[in-house]
């Protein structure tokens, strides 16, 4: 029958793309169910080549249109004429907030892999062991050695530029040549080396090519990444995994396919497929496969499990012990410091680098000696602002002022680990359904004491680093963020050893339904402080390998 496949992948974003590629390359007839439209690499990046003056109204969306994006606008940088087509309309995709949660979504082929920040850092055993050592949450069922080869595997495919630093807490990967630091960043790096034994500064490790790689072109330093890269210079599902998956002849994508729930077959005592609602026609369809990968994004994958209710699973699949939807995490950020380096004003930059610096975690590394657990890393960079800084008065004075760049400024912004809290959760509201009749998500999550204490140190240490580097007029940035804004939502269907305290096993299989794999952010047992996408990709490739081996051995039937 035409709706039967060897494998189904729900979602085509950063992890779904890898799942589909790996499954298809292993010879499985794979169906990707994507809830949004198709997005063909390059062809469907309508704003990628536009100049500033070609963007209507300074790239700002109309007052009328802003009404539709009230929550997606919370980032401040995503809803513009050049980028709004990558984000959902909140009016069409509503959700509830018991506490503020900034849930950023893009429903289209490629998902958020088109708009992601591209930063790629490996977790280390400092991260994998922390929960067990500190008695927080539950232990990860894996260690660094389990995932290390899979990091290498996906990094070689994706193409990560970066500098090896030999740090235990931030393992080196398979790097292409690093992007350049600028003169002020080099200065701060050198001063840090002198002033701190425990802190280094390195160039951001990014899924951006510094040389041609796997048929994709190298970065042209336009910094228009979020519009889609016509050179394929940054990795997205669209530029990377999906074309490879399709080229096998084994993989097809069905657009406008909203997965409603998993189909549980009582007689076979297993999940056999998925219920789909066509987003355009609202017709229901069913698709069947012996292997199902949920890669719909952490919150949506969790919602699909929750909505998969049956007599056998009255609270949804993977939810026999009230773990599903809990332990929701996101990185807390938007604090740090900035300072001025006027001594370098005879220097400037050529090019626009869609990357910055990274200062790896240095707190609680050798031992826990802070008044908070875990740690944070800094991102940021140095640059010279142009006209957008504003200037004095008006007339020739103003014009001349803005015709020159501002003094060098260096900014450090911390991304901190968030602990897994049972009370931080998402639930489904069956009384508030969307236009497809699906229950909507309600968030009830907040940063707590550990994050607040860490935040103080994130600010103080940024000031300390900049002052030690000789920055002038160092100012702390105390803005802070609400959960969700990091767009690193994770943990709501976590991995673990015990089915009573976790949803997934060490191979990302749902304990209760071994042929269902969840390999997006939902699977995370702790958040670490690093950008998580490359970890999702590595876990996905590892899980597919296990899935296909298990299938061959007859272990999934």
């Amino acid at each position, binding site marked *: 029958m035409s709706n039967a496949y060897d494998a189904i992948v729900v979602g085509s974003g950063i992890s779904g793309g890898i799942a589909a590629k790996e499954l298809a390359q292993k010879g499985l007839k794979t169906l990707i169910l994507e809830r949004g439209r198709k997005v063909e690499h390059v062809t469907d990046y309508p704003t990628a080549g536009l100049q500033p003056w070609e963007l209507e109204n300074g790239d700002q969306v109309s007052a009328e249109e802003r009404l539709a994006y009230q929550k997606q606008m919370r980032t401040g940088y995503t809803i513009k004429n050049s980028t709004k087509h990558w984000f959902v309309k909140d009016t069409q995709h509503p959700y509830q907030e018991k506490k503020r949660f900034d849930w950023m979504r893009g429903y289209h082929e490629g998902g958020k892999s088109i708009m992601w920040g591209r930063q790629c850092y490996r977790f280390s055993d400092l991260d994998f062991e922390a929960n067990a050592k500190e008695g927080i949450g539950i232990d990860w069922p894996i260690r660094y050695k389990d995932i290390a080869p899979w990091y290498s595997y996906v990094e070689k495919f994706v193409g990560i530029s970066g500098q090896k630093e030999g740090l235990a807490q931030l393992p080196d990967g398979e790097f292409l040549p690093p992007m350049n630091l600028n003169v002020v960043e080099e200065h701060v790096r050198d001063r840090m080396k002198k002033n701190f034994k425990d802190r280094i500064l390195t160039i951001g490790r990014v899924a951006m090519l510094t040389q041609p790689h796997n048929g994709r072109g190298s970065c042209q330093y336009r910094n228009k990444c979020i519009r889609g890269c016509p050179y394929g210079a940054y990795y997205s599902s669209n530029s990377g995994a999906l074309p490879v998956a399709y080229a096998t002849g084994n993989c097809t994508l069905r657009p406008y396919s909203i997965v409603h729930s998993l189909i549980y077959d009582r007689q076979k005592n297993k999940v056999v497929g998925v219920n789909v609602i066509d987003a355009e026609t609202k017709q229901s369809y069913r698709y069947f496969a012996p292997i199902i990968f949920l890669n719909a994004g952490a919150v949506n994958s969790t919602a699909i499990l929750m909505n998969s209710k049956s007599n056998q699973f009255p609270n949804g699949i993977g939810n026999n012990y009230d773990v599903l939807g809990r332990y929701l995490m996101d990185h807390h950020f938007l604090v740090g410091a900035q300072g001025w380096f006027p001594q370098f004003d005879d220097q*400037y930059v050529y090019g626009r680098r869609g990357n910055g610096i990274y200062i790896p975690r240095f707190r609680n590394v050798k031992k826990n000696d802070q008044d908070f657990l875990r740690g944070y890393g800094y991102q940021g960079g140095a640059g010279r602002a142009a006209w957008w800084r504003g200037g004095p008065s008006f007339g020739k004075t103003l014009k001349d002022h803005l015709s020159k760049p501002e003094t060098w400024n260096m900014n450090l912004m911390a991304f901190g680990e968030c602990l897994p809290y049972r009370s931080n959760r998402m639930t489904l509201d069956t009384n508030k359904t969307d236009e497809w009749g699906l229950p909507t998500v309600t968030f009830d999550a907040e940063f707590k004491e550990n994050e607040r204490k860490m935040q103080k140190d994130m600010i103080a240490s940024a000031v300390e680093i900049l002052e030690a580097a000789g920055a002038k007029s160092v100012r702390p940035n105390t803005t802070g963020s609400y959960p969700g804004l990091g767009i690193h939502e994770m943990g709501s269907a976590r991995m673990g050893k015990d089915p009573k305290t976790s949803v997934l096993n060490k191979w990302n299989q749902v304990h209760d339904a071994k042929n269902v794999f969840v390999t997006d952010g939902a699977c995370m047992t702790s958040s670490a402080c690093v950008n998580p996408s490359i970890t999702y990709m590595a876990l996905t490739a590892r899980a597919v390998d296990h899935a296909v081996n298990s299938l061959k051995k007859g272990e999934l039937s």
Partner: protein
Amino acid sequence: MSKKRHGAQMDKIDRRQFLKQVSMLTGFTLTTASWSAVLSSCAKKSKMLTLFEQDFGFASRKNLLLDAKNFYAIVDELTEVIIPITDTPGAKDARVVDFVDGMISVVYGKRDREFFLEGIAHTDSLARSMFKNAFVQCSEQEKIAVVKKLEQESASKQNDFFEKIKGLTIAGFFTSQIGATQVLKHIDVPGRYETVPYAEIGKAWSQ
């Protein structure tokens, strides 16, 4: 809507809100890295641009100013006083007035738009009381005197119209092709990123 409230609101503007406004204005991709650089570099001058309020009434027409011809002419002159022609083109050359028109007609909410239109009318009445002449009929020096008066009103928090028109003029001018390529240095596809002597570039980059 009181003008005083606008001034008070500007005092309270936080960095995040400012960042939001700036990034909306600049029209570029701001990755986390450059985003934070913008944040930091703008923080100290956070009074420059106040654009949005949570007010989403919208205009039904795309060219309010063009439809109100005398307002269009006033804004055309006003932007030129803010960014005049020198040895390089100015606001009139770049048709900044059309940018302003689009912004207030389409992007601004109702309250901001009304405030802005009031500001244009206020500019003209200042000219009439100071020089017994319509703003557009004033001499260069007289126009500058009127704008100085607007600037003073803004500095003393009576009326921040000056900051608004200035912010729009700056954004409109430097994102225009003329501003970006003839006053600033613009390159679409740099192809590399590296530190270079400032003298090699000699101006600010357009983005």
